[in-house]
């Protein structure tokens, strides 16, 4: 479904990512873990066309997308839920959600997606008129994920959805990913520093370090591997 082939990314001339490749198959949850500054966000932004890919290729459902603009990539069904959420703070929850369906022309489909999101996150339904910026971090993360789901994406890329949330909210976020897996409509690429949880959820995972893939494999195997246990789990 998604194939990143040997990409290089530079920030003002300095390469922060070199010859990196990953693959995501349909209906598979793929985790990308790594320390702060490893290049996780850079990878997702490169896929989205938000940072320039200096070398290599990105393919999505058989189409080469590394030369496309972000808004064209979104229309292909590839959605990025950014780190730090980037909600439109003064707008209401529902306005934010509807902006997530900006590319959806069909009114009925839009309403269906809205209902789906409200069913997934009843708290958003209760607060749909509230300014999204005035909600708690956990509620905002639900709004961000909900907004990402509003265009019924084929692939949803979540960038550190548990960052800075209270423990209860963290488990709720991962619970949401489980529900999406169960529904089977959306493939998820999950970027996390919360390595244990992310690996438990994923089918396949990559370990990123200073812009390179240091390790990859079935998530359960990585979870059991010495390298990962020592580096991330303090064991």
């Amino acid at each position, binding site marked *: 479904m998604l194939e990143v082939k040997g990409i290089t990314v530079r920030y003002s001339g300095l390469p922060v990512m070199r010859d990196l490749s990953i693959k995501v198959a349909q209906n598979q949850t793929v985790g990308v873990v790594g320390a702060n500054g490893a290049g996780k966000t850079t990878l997702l932004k490169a896929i*989205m066309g*938000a940072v320039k890919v200096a070398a290599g290729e990105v393919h999505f459902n058989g189409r080469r997308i590394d030369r496309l*603009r*972000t*808004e064209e990539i*979104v*229309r292909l069904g590839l*959605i*990025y839920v*950014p780190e730090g959420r*980037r*909600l*439109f*703070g*003064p*707008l209401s929850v529902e*306005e934010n959600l*509807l*902006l*997530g369906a*900006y*590319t959806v022309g069909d009114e009925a489909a839009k309403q269906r997606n809205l209902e789906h999101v409200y069913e997934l996150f009843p708290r958003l339904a209760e607060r749909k008129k509230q300014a999204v910026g005035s909600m708690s971090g956990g509620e905002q993360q639900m709004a961000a994920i909900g*907004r990402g789901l509003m*265009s019924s994406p084929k692939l949803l890329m979540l960038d550190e959805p548990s960052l800075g949330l209270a423990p209860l909210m963290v488990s709720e976020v991962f619970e949401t990913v489980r529900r999406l897996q169960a529904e089977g409509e959306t493939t998820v690429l999950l970027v996390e520093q919360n390595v244990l949880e992310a690996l438990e959820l994923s089918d396949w995972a990559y370990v990123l370090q200073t812009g390179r893939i240091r390790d990859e494999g079935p998530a359960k195997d990585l979870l059991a591997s010495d390298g990962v246990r020592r580096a991330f789990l303090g064991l």
Partner: protein
Amino acid sequence: MEELGIQILKSAVSGLIMGLVFALVALGLTVIFGVMDIVNFAHGEFLMVGMYTTLLTSPLLGVDPVLTLPLAGLVGAVLGVMCYFGLIRFLLRGPMIAQLFGTFGLMIFLRNLALLFMGSEPRIVHEGWLVGKSILVGPGVVLESTKVAAAALSLISFAVVWWFINRTRVGKAITATSLDAEGARYMGISTEYMNALAWAVGGASVGVAGGLLVNFWPVEPGVGLLFTMIAFATVALGGFGSVRGALVAGILIGFIVNLPPVWDAILRSIDAAGLRGLEIHSFKYTMVYAVYFLIMVLRPQGLFGWKQ
């Protein structure tokens, strides 16, 4: 004392009326600034183009000046989009200072273009439904119907833009882009398209404002500067990027500009010998900036602003 009472009423009414026109002039500036963080020094020249559009097309088409307003809006929108694609888009890649000089250059360019084609003679609409008619609103308070109609049409235009931005899908995309352009791109909203749209909406609203204004304010190639200055103060006062702020601040500035005659009347009624001959109303634009500076000190983001 009676003179004073009448003067206050008169000033309040004309303040409200001028304020609504100021608000419409500032609306385009605030929409463009909100989306792109760019200050358009040529904004008053857009207004001038709108004024000339109505002045010239009304006799040409043989219709009343009021009926040419949609045309003035259209010309403003086209001009805005042309400026965006021809100039602003390139300026965005440069530093802030390039944007300042760029739109400043645009101002000089449009002004000289007008001088070339229109000459320096001030001109005004002489005939029309609105011209030269007045209505009596109270004892001694006579209003030119031109200004009343201009105020009403300003309010209507304002309402249309407000509705577009706050109630339509594309309008919300404009808001999203002005809040976080990169975040909006992740929703599939093209920043380029929203920028161009902001220039179209901004150009259209200031074009309509020009078409209204020329019914009671003479147009000449240099007319823009005063209105650019007032629009800047309005936008800063109301809050950069805030549509509601532009309305409130526009009316506020209308009041400020029309307040000095009240002071003059007070001075006359107390017959202050030492102050005889001092005409406060010649300082009316100074007062606008005095209030502006005061608000900047107390509340730098403006009355309704979310941006600095």
